[in-house]
């Protein structure tokens, strides 16, 4: 599996653009470890899996919403959809206590510096879900006041399409994030090993489901319920 290595850079200058960290594509760091030392490699693999298992099943979302998508995100948090099934019901009002933020709604040029500030206040490890067309790409709002996709300045882990996405789509996005967290390689401690963050390159959902989707030729008419 291919990984993306992200390293936080210490010194930043005024002209640097967000996102600040350095990224490069690498092979699975664990496979090299295994070749060097079978026992230590295995141990690290088990530890890493255990830690990731814990992380992915207790994701605390940041209570952050911008527009319409936030209503559907909130719907996913209430009883009919019950996000607690995935361990992500502990909404935090402070970015300092949250594990991931969902950019649920349109990212405005006036709001972008505020979003960056809130993202910076979250502690590592942290993830970002971009929810809805506006956050993904600007969507139908190709207009002077809207940033054409929040990935212009934030690193995004999962994109959820829709305008707005259904609550089920948000829950699927959350599960995709969990899958990707399970494959992550992060330093087990600040003194152990390489301090880079290795994110697995997960398979594209569009390609995965493409054949099944184009196989559908008969669509139901809207004449009956």
């Amino acid at each position, binding site marked *: 599996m291919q990984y993306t290595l992200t390293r936080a850079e210490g010194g*930043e*200058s*005024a*002209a*640097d*653009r*967000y996102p*600040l960290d350095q990224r490069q594509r690498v092979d699975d760091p664990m496979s090299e470890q295994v070749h060097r030392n079978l026992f230590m490699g295995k141990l690290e693999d088990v530890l890493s899996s255990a830690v990731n298992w814990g992380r992915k099943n207790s994701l605390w979302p940041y*209570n*952050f*919403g*911008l*527009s*319409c998508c*936030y*209503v*559907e995100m*909130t*719907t996913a948090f*209430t*009883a*009919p959809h019950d996000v607690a099934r995935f361990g992500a019901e502990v909404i935090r*009002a402070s970015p300092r206590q949250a594990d991931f933020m969902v950019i649920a*709604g*349109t990212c*405005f*040029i*006036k*709001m*972008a*510096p*505020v979003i*960056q*500030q*809130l993202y910076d206040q979250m502690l590592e490890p942290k993830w970002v879900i971009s929810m809805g067309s506006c956050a993904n790409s*600007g969507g*139908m*709002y*190709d*207009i*002077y*006041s*809207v*940033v*054409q996709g929040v990935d*212009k*300045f934030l690193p995004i882990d999962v994109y959820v399409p829709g*305008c*707005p996405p*259904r609550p089920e789509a948000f829950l699927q996005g959350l599960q995709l994030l969990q899958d990707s967290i399970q494959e992550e390689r992060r330093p087990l401690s600040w003194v152990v090993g390489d301090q880079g963050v290795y994110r697995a390159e997960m398979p594209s959902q569009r390609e995965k489901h493409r054949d099944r989707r184009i196989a559908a030729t008969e669509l139901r008419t*809207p*004449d*009956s*319920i």
Partner: protein
Amino acid sequence: MTAADESLISNAGAAETPAASSADVVAELARQFGDGAVTPQTTLTGMPVIWVPRDRLRDVLVYLRDVSRPFSMLYDLSAVDERLRTHRRGLPPSDFTVFYQLLSVERNADILLKVALAERDLSLPSVSDIFVNANWYEREVFDLFGIDFAGHPHLTRIMMPPTWHGHPLRKDYSARATEFDPYTLTVKGQEVEQEALRFDPEAWGMQRQGEETEFMFLNLGPNHPSAHGAFRIVLQLDGEEVVDCVPDIGYHHRGAEKMAERQSWHSFIPYTDRIDYTGGVMNNLPYVMAVEKLAGITVTDRAKTIRVMMAEMFRINSHLLFLGTYLQDLGAMTPVFFTFTDRQKAYEVIEAITGFRMHPAWYRIGGTAHDLPKGWDKLVQGFVDWMPKRLAEYEKAMMDNAIVRDRTKHVAAFTTQEALDWGVTGPNLRATGLDFDLRKKRPYSGYENFDFEVPTAVNGDAFDRGMMRIEEMRQSVRILQQCVDHMPAGDYKADHPLTTPPPREKMLQHIETLITHFLQVSWGPVLPANESLQMVEATKGINSYYLTSDGSTMSYRTRIRTPSFPHLQQIPAVMRGGFVPDLIAHLGSIDFVMADVDR
């Protein structure tokens, strides 16, 4: 309630027809100011439209405000960049036109005043001392058009960031983000923008020190759990007491009015859904009705009733969201789970009929997107049977709760007169005791055929505003029941050349109708040059679209008047002297979404 309010309400009951009183007011103005001072314009707005010279504007406004049976509400104020408008025959020369729409509850009538401005002299006297709520509207015009208002207390940008260059609603300003350089955020840029948002009390004429205490300035937002979106309000605090506060908006400005100038009349419909994003198709209604006025389309009874039914579904849906979040802001965790369960039920109906949840964009120019599906009546009936017992439960379990009552009774109360001064409409206005509901006062889309009541309350406080929503849902359920029982047969689309898209059977008849169909979906329908306006009683108050057509496939100017904008402007007047928890209760009780404020 004061004696003045009492008389206001009794007068409102005896309102006369809009047409009769509109003739009076033009004659009154001509008598008072001379024929030369008022130039009438014929439009499809359904109200007198009068051009007044700039130097008489203030006199005319004061006269209309103080005349017997006064125009006591400044309903809307905005501008039009007229420099590219071709169909202007008979109108006074103007590069930029600023318009003022006044509303009279006693007359049940409106009047639209227009002032012509030349490009080299874009200045007007401010009217914020005549109508208090002109303050934000004038700032918006200054921000988006670059028109100066002499004597305005704080003329700064309101929608765009303070560091912005240019005035987006001018015709020479590009609409698309992709016409500008791609957005980048640098470390330096981040600091500059954040610094520009820093609150400066002196700029707002605020003291940092009281007689005995030093005030604390608390920045609430633009991201705060009880601010319901990207809304910021800066509080000047003496302990827990709110001495003063300054709401700051513009964090949700999606440029919908500019968007209307580049989308065809038809393809703008999805953008209206996203104005009051909890209102769904309720937003389509004023827009398509205003377009139909321009096009001269008469909609069938079936289409009207389907529209009323879906709009009321969304009213219930929006009020349920309100109720859950309002109580959550007061500290109650459970209600939101209950109301969202009901919303899910509503969505099952909405989805089966329209095919989408939040933003169906389901109304069309001349009708709806398709007919009701087979079995719709069972679905709606199921929802109608489900709701009443839930509403009774909400009232008993939530609104009778002692904590909720203590937190909201006599909190953030305002009178009918104050509400009218600030442009407050909808349930928030009716909570003060005035039964001004457009569905009754100026019935549209067949509301005159329905049997329902307009609930009102007495105190105009945060509690009454909560109760109003429960009562309104009961009335909406009644309307839904009548839709199920008496849905008219017939077409769901009008048989008119400008119905978009045209009825499919027509399209298949011969080459002429096929060409019309092709042009309407590729270029869009061409509407005759004129102006029209439609107001509706939306979920949060009165929402209206004021359309100016220049005889093209796109709107020349679309003014969207939303209820939440004046509701937020009123916050400082209500909150001065209150406590911070009262402010949270008040924010919860207003029922606003930021897209409805900033558009």
